[in-house]
């Protein structure tokens, strides 16, 4: 029997008609679930149950002290959500997170896209080295890098020393409510532009060379080629990268937590930091409600952006 005949026979049993066929299908299902069991267990314990439980907690007044008796808490309906949106600090944190997304996403994509274009423009020397350097920040540890940032943006630090050398009096970056956010966003952008660059590079390399050659023959210059060929063909990549980064930045925690702790005066506190602060204060119900607002935002962004992607391709 040839291999293809065997796989054809295998497909035929996928719709079992006989008792023996059903038994073999049941056996194969059991074996497959054995393969899946360890993953399924971790998924149930650490994703499925926590998600459902978080929704349940967000509808109760559970606090840290109730952990041992989780069923003794009161059901309070949407009260936590109402309290959230009446809490000025939560509204402020939503706006901070929105600012992080609104500035961080275009900046990260812009840098990643420009570098990808440059690396894809036919240069050969140093290409590998440059790509390595631009990608290196992606693999760095955020705690370590945040310390370097604090050291460099200290009021007497290296950044201000460099600014001083060209005649500017450097400010106290991380203690200034107007300047702390840009420094925090800069750390996020530095750690993520490499991801955007690699994804754009993959997109660019999928564009066939002869499309450009044909355009050049028709007299289209570099800018027109970029505008009318590269950008439209990269639209799926662009949407994918924008969804990805939006989802990252909507959940931003590490950068503000480590650099400023959300300060000064809450000017860098994100929704994720609010969630963590409520958790730390033992307000598990409020914390879960805040985390569900993040989940809702992430879901809406993903669905809307993927709809856009599907309608255009």
């Amino acid at each position, binding site marked *: 029997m040839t291999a293809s005949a065997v796989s054809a026979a295998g497909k035929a049993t996928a719709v079992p008609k006989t008792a023996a066929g059903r038994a073999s299908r049941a056996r194969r299902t059991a074996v497959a679930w054995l393969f899946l069991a360890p993953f399924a267990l971790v998924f149930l314990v650490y994703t499925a149950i926590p998600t459902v439980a978080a929704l349940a907690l967000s509808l109760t007044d559970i606090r840290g002290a109730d952990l041992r008796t989780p069923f003794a808490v009161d059901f309070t309906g949407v009260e936590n959500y109402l309290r959230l949106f009446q809490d000025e600090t939560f509204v402020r944190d939503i706006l901070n997170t929105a600012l992080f997304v609104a500035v961080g996403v275009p900046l990260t994509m812009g840098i990643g896209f420009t570098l990808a274009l440059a690396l894809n423009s036919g240069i050969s020397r*140093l290409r590998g080295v440059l790509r390595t350097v631009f*990608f290196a920040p992606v693999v760095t540890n955020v705690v370590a890098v945040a310390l370097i940032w604090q050291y460099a943006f200290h009021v007497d630090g290296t950044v201000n020393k460099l600014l001083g050398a060209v005649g500017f009096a450097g400010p106290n970056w991380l203690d200034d409510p107007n300047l702390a956010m840009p420094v925090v966003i800069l750390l996020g952008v530095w750690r993520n532009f490499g991801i955007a660059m690699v*994804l754009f590079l993959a997109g660019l390399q999928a564009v066939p060379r002869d499309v450009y050659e044909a355009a050049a023959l028709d007299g289209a210059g570099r800018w027109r080629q970029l505008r009318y060929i590269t950008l439209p063909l990269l639209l799926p990549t662009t949407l994918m990268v924008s969804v990805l980064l939006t989802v990252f930045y909507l*959940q931003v925690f590490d950068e503000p937590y480590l650099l400023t702790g959300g300060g000064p005066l809450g000017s860098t506190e994100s929704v994720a930091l609010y969630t963590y602060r409520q958790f730390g204060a033992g307000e598990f119900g409020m914390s879960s409600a805040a985390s569900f607002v993040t989940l809702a935002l992430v879901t809406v962004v993903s669905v809307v952006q993927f709809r856009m992607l599907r309608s255009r391709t």
Partner: protein
Amino acid sequence: MSRTARPVMYAALVLCALLTMLPFAWGVSGSLRSLDEIRSDPGALLPHHLTLGNFTRLFETQGFGRFVVNSVVVALIVVAGNILAASAAGYALAKLDFAGRRLAFGAVMAAMMVPFTAVFVTQFVITVDLGLADTLAGIALPGAALPLSVFIMRQYALSVPDELLEAARIDGAGEFRIFFGIFLPLAGPAVATITIMSFLNSWNNFIWPLVVAQSMATYTLPVGLAATSQAAAHVTDYGLLLAGAIVVMLPVLVLFLFLQRYFVQGVAGTGLR
């Protein structure tokens, strides 16, 4: 590209590369400066006198040896779990025909999308209930079968021809022998990507170990470094902290230099890290 444009392009790219590297240079330079020197001239670009004193202080007085061991143990559990559990799941999703396959694949996709901030509170409650709070197992387990790894292995397994596995089935080999004896040896590149991605994930993880670890005995490197930083804040002992930063970053950067193909594939294939 024209003759004049090319040098301009190179110059711009090299300048960008230097700017990207600047934080690394600050970190290395600061880690080699003594406390006194940093106090008297905090903003100097280069050390006046090189010293390794910060590194020895880390291990002698700050307990970094313990944190290194903890980080390695957690990473080993995570990597082993991903190679076995996630590979098996990815293989089953791609190569076995069974009831509930669509449901299982949906679970993998959903698990990749649920934001960590949405579940860490209840994950922590469950960890406490399981008696795993303040243990290395409690830190490692949620990452021991990453949906990302399952996805990577599933995509790879789809490219392995069915005929190979069917031939073994005809010869009477059991499904587990086919997986371990035939499929896994063929899946080297996917196993390498999963190893790298799950190691990176575990080594750099911060907020989850921060929540679970409650004593120095279970601190991983990033948590230990953050704790050292809080304790040292009043003396701004940057030399010590930057030495810690280098210790945390160096293993991953060295791995990255040698295995960057897998890092890039892992990140580019899924957009996650």
